[in-house]
């Protein structure tokens, strides 16, 4: 038997009082794709950062190809043949592809010879692995899929034979993700070892040979992918049985709640973001907007939520809502029973340095039950926060904790609780589960479905197709500011939606 490409023995790492990794041991066979799955904060990224020399483990040993190896810094990791593709790419945006690739791996003091050598090597790599990129394109001019290829090429250029990818598909469209996995397959066929860190069960099941599960800093299991199933993995991740499907009865749509007619939105730079958009959301239904990020979904949500001005007509329960000037702001929207869970909860949904109870007040701080004469009735507010925290299972249930000290899932629960508990007629919800762990996803989805079942309208925007498909009753796909097509969720699939998302017109798809 050949030695494992990577063997970690008893790795532990603490950040202050937080034990990020606890006695972790793992063996990764050469020439395989090894998945590491776990919730946010389970310690996956910390473990890989230790392997790449970003952190030093407090305890434990690293063995590479059967040899004990010290990895005090990234240089040592590169020398040991390890390449890493981070979740947030480490590229210099105003450099060309070629410059990014040679950075740190130049052949001498002068750039010219290094660049021309890299150009040649790049052509060979492109041929070998079907990794085509324009070497002279600037990073800020190419898409994220291409940028990711540059990161992979960077690793290969440094002759990595172990490649670590951290949440590689988070920013990719379905077709870009497919391409990525074709490339990974190819790399595996050439004998490279690949570690895939993800929280997406589907990717683990489809593409990996072996999978390790992490929970709360510990490695809970390592199993052959062929011998497991998603439900079992989810249970290992969360520590209890989890419902992976959204459990809901068929929708019973009632009268139109939200009617959008010929909506146009032009952004600060004068670019048309939403173009002649028409959409209706009825009582008791969830309408999901699918689309690659940046195709006008954000602007649509912002106009509806009163954070941006637009032109056209919007009616709520038959009454027109102003789209500009007086009465078009977020406060007015809330007064007319529109609740909004913004896409970026850390920037628009919460003030990260403020206490949970203060965050629960935002947007509704004018509410009469929070007032006490000229002052705010903070005691009432805190009591209300405690009630909401209990109902939404926010952990820890401490109103005095700053928003930034909650995990992503619990932050989102605070925002969702604030908005849903106001009993809105229409809920606007953007990326409800971005950066949220499986347990919390299940909970938040359940709350949204319950709201629907009470006869409320929900407009959902998400870049996760799986989420759109499982949660929505009706799916509308946005591309370049327009609705490319609408489908009942149970009569469509990822493939059809993927084509619409790429701008292929409805009939052709």
């Amino acid at each position: 038997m050949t030695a494992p490409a990577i063997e970690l023995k008893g790795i532990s790492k603490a950040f202050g009082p937080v034990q990020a990794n606890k006695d972790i041991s793992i063996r990764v066979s050469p020439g395989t794709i090894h998945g590491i799955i776990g919730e946010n904060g389970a310690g996956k990224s910390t473990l890989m950062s230790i392997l790449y020399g970003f952190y030093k483990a407090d305890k434990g040993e690293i063995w590479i190809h059967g040899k004990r190896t010290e990895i005090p810094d990234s240089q040592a990791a590169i020398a040991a043949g390890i390449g890493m593709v981070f979740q947030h790419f480490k590229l210099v945006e105003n450099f060309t592809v070629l410059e990014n690739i040679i950075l740190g791996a130049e052949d001498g003091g002068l750039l010219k010879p290094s660049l021309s050598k890299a150009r040649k090597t790049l052509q060979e790599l492109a041929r070998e692995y079907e990794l085509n990129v324009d070497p002279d394109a600037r990073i800020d001019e190419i898409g994220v899929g291409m940028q990711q290829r540059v990161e992979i090429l960077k690793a290969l250029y440094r002759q990595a034979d172990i490649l670590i990818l951290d949440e590689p598909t988070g920013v990719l469209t379905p077709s870009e993700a497919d391409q990525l996995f074709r490339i990974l397959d190819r790399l595996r066929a050439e004998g490279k070892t690949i570690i895939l860190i993800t929280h997406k069960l589907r990717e683990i099941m489809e593409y990996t040979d072996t999978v390790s599960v992490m929970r709360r800093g510990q490695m809970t299991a390592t199993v052959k992918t062929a011998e497991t199933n998603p439900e079992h993995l989810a249970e290992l991740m969360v520590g209890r049985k989890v419902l992976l499907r959204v459990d809901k009865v068929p929708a019973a749509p009632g009268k139109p709640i939200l009617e959008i007619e010929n909506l146009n939105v032009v952004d600060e730079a004068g670019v048309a973001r939403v173009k002649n958009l028409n959409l209706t959301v009825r009582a008791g239904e969830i309408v999901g907007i699918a689309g690659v990020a940046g195709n006008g979904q954000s602007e649509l949500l912002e106009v509806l939520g009163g954070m941006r001005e637009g032109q056209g007509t919007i009616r709520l329960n038959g009454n027109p809502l102003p789209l500009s000037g007086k009465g078009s702001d977020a406060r007015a929207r809330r007064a007319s029973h529109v609740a909004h869970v913004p896409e970026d909860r850390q920037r628009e949904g919460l003030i990260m340095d403020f206490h949970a109870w203060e965050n629960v007040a935002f947007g509704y701080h004018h509410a009469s039950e929070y007032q006490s004469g000229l002052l705010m009735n903070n005691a009432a507010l805190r009591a209300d926060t405690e009630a909401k925290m209990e109902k939404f299972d926010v952990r820890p249930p401490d109103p005095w904790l700053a928003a930034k000290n909650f995990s992503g899932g619990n932050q989102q629960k605070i925002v969702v609780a604030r908005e849903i508990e106001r009993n809105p007629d229409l809920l606007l919800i953007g990326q409800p589960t971005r950066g949220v762990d499986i347990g919390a996803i299940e909970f938040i989805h359940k709350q949204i479905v319950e709201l629907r079942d009470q006869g409320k309208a929900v407009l959902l925007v998400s870049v996760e197709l799986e989420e759109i498909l499982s949660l929505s009753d009706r799916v509308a796909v946005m591309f370049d500011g327009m609705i490319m097509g609408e489908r009942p969720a149970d009569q469509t699939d990822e493939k059809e939606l993927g084509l619409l998302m790429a701008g292929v017109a409805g009939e052709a798809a």
Partner: protein
Amino acid sequence: MMDFLTLIQVLDSTVRLATPLLLACLAGLFSERAGIFDIGLEGKMLMAAFFSAAVAATTGNVWLGLLAGIASSLVLAGLHGLASITFRGNQLISGVAINFLAAGMTVLIAQDWFQQGGRTPSLISGGRFEPITLPFANAVEGVPVLGPIYSELLSGHSILVYLAFLAVPATAWILFGTRFGLRLRAVGENPAAVDTAGVSVVGLRYAAVMICGLLCGIAGAYLATALQAGFVKDMTAGRGFIALAALIFAKWRPWHALGACLLFGLLQAVALRFQNIELGSIVIPVQFMDALPYILTVVILAGFVGKAIPPKAGGEPYVKER
């Protein structure tokens, strides 16, 4: 009317006045391209001006003076590096502190050493950088147009002037033609990219800050031992800040920095040459002319630069993210 000779003289003085700006501007360019903002150019120049004049006055050797100037500027640069790289402090505050430190210490030490009211003794021959006469400068003086351009404008400057102008292509070559330059530019844009590529962010940034110190040292020494003959209180007179303005104007590019510094040098030269200007019955006072470079700096920066995008990681201490 301004005749040809006057024009040549104004341009000649432009070159002299642009030299310290150019050296300081390039100094700032190295530092800021690496992501370390430096508003302490002024302080480093001032410190170098004093120590170069003091040592040159004491030893009578201008080269020793230059070395002393550079050394003192490097010390301050190291301090800035320590504060902003090693201890990840606020780069602006560190720069301000250095400016205050230099303004106070130079006068204090000067008074203690020389008892001349916070100045150094006037430098005599040997303690100053003398003008260099280029070959045939005297011979071609009589040739119309080209003669004065060569003998007045190009010839007759001190070695530091030529050095400053040669530093422009050198800087461009280092930044865009060498491995060091590539890494330097990268560390100012995205230090995480440099770190994950296995290169030391701290090392690169210290190197950049030290180059900045070196160039500021030369700039300061030039002020006290070539442009003037000795150190006087606050003799940098805001040149460090004008150099920063020129740097933004040039959008952190070496050749553009040359253009910007020549422009600001020209403004200063005009102000020096034409004191009270009479326009019919109105007299433009000398104070206005003296203020002109600064007024134009504001106008130019406010209106004519367009969008100047600084290096993306500028001013941010590098901390590895979890």
